[in-house]
């Protein structure tokens, strides 16, 4: 292997090792420790000053108690399931909103596209927190939406949206919408218009040409978009905390409670490790399946 190629590959790998693997290994290490009233609040701590004996002693004190504890209390499984459910529903909702927008953008005249793309990206220029807070101003009981609807006379009592799971879905769909639009747009934009025309020429209706030609062509974009929404939505903490009610159970909140309220860093770490496993295993299986299909297709 030549040096240039080696360096080119080494840079992203070093990046992943330093910013993903090392922090993750630290979390794994803490997940096998036990909580203590000390600084930092767990034991044992790793130190190289005692030499080999110290390292041996360190490993002998590690235990799987935290993982066993996770199986004994149904809170954790319910929180994982409820997070998966919220993330799945939000992903579908985001897809429903994003697809027509991406389709419209891809079909828009060439000179409009940069402007439309800019409009999708524009919200990122404002802090995410400020945008969530402005939603609070819109959907709260005395907020803009309720005042407007009551002024129109459509409703007599304010709609309770704030602090319910409806507000959580709204927040997630709004926040992650660009992550869904952009990959779908990228896939649709590359599509050759003549493919659709050919389908219509061969007797397909416009609708079946859309279903049989356009949708399959945009599949990679849809899959990428769904991952980009689904994965961060599972661990979402800020949106349910600010917009959701107290009964919106999500794993991010459970993790916060373990880490901050109980000051139990080891248990919080094991919750995080399990969450990662729950996410990574299905994604790896899915990708392997995709690869197989592609190879079979050839």
């Amino acid at each position, binding site marked *: 292997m030549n040096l240039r190629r080696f360096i080119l590959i080494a840079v992203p790998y070093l990046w992943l090792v330093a910013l993903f693997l090392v922090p993750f290994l630290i979390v794994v290490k803490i997940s096998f420790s036990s*909580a203590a*009233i*000390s*600084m*930092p*609040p767990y034991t044992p701590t790793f130190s190289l000053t005692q030499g080999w004996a110290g390292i041996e002693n360190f490993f002998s004190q590690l235990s799987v108690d935290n993982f066993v504890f996770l199986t004994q*209390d*149904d*809170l954790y499984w*319910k*929180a994982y399931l409820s997070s998966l459910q919220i993330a799945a529903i939000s992903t579908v909702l985001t897809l429903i909103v994003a697809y027509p927008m991406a389709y419209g953008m891809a079909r828009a005249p060439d000179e409009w596209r940069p402007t439309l793309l800019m409009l999708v990206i524009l919200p990122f220029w404002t802090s995410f927190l400020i945008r969530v807070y402005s939603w609070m101003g819109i959907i*709260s*009981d*005395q907020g803009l939406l309720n005042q407007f609807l009551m002024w129109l006379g459509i409703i007599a009592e304010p709609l309770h949206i704030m*602090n319910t799971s409806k507000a959580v879905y709204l927040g997630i769909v709004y926040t992650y919408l660009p992550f869904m639009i952009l990959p779908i747009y990228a896939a649709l934009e590359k599509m050759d218009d003549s493919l659709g025309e050919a389908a219509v020429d061969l007797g397909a209706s416009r609708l079946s040409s859309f279903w049989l030609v356009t949708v399959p062509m945009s599949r990679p974009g849809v899959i990428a978009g769904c991952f980009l929404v689904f994965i961060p939505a599972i661990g979402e903490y800020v949106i349910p905390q600010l917009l959701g*009610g*107290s*009964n*919106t*159970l999500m794993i991010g909140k*459970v993790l916060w*409670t373990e*880490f*901050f*309220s*109980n*000051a*139990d860093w080891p248990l919080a770490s094991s919750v995080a490790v399990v969450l990662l496993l729950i996410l990574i295993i299905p994604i790896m299986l899915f990708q392997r399946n995709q690869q197989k299909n592609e190879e079979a297709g050839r």
Partner: protein
Amino acid sequence: MFKTLIPATLIAISGTMAAAEEVHVYNWSDYIDPALLQKFEDQTGIKLVYDVFDSNEVLETKLLSGSSGYDVVVPTGSFLERQIQAGVFQKLDYSKMPNSKYLWDKIKERTAQYDPGNQYAVNYMWGTTGIGINDEKVKEVLGADAPVDSLSLVFDPKYMKKLQSCGVMMLDAPTEMIPAALRYLGEDPNSKDPKVIEKAEPVLEAIRPYVRKFNSSEYINSLANGDICVAFGWSGDILQARDRAAEAKNGVTISYHIPKEGALMWFDMMAIPADAPNPSGAEKFINFMMDPENIAAASNYVNYANGNKESQKYLDKSVIDDPAIYPPAATMDNLYTVTAYPPKVKRIVTRLWTKVKSGT
């Protein structure tokens, strides 16, 4: 030329760094008169870096991680107790803080239960946890004889069911809510016995459906702008809501009530982390805040009582004469305090709270 220039520049830089002494203070949000910060800098020539937090848990996590970079932090008593055990703080050198002679012995007696002998911390402010109401709306829903000065207003489903329509918020703080529920039942609010603590669960679960949200900071705004009519929260915060509503002239009048069954009395304590970069600057800041005129200015601004007897001369009449801020002796005797939970019990308390909030 360059050889001589570079060391000279380095010396110049290190010289200015030594001159600009800094002290880093980490306190609760909306908890001081900003004019005092400027006054401290003018008096001492020390640059003050003032950061704020809004939950004990966030502060505690920073302290337990170590090297927080702060010289003065202000945890609440029961958290302070646990942090002292973890070895987070250094002992105070009272000889360097002459203003400590002004401290109020009645408060020192109570804070000694978290910090025996008051070796690690001095009181900044103290307050109670009680009931804030929107006078008109509660009257409208419950009639003129609503039990606004009783815990039954917030713990009896009979009242809560009706109040639900105008909105109720409660603190998202199990260490405040569970003792209050126990007091309502006539149990010991400071109990560390899991069997006693579990008795709070049915009380809280019965009112849970009628609580709009458990949150420890949103109720100030929601109460002030009329979104909710009852909040179970911290005295000074509810008084802030009262002042904001009065300023906005939006027709909302808020009042704070200490329940007749007794209320939790809490203490926010100034302490110096063991690894503080500038402990002597920290002592100067704490001494500055123990100056009776300074701490009185802070109390006048934030509507919380302080632990400084001498400062009472300098308090506004509206503060020292307000029974919601400085309760009369009879009410004081009825206030209770809670100490830190041992880790195993703390887990039970947190779990119970999650169960109440999420139904799981």
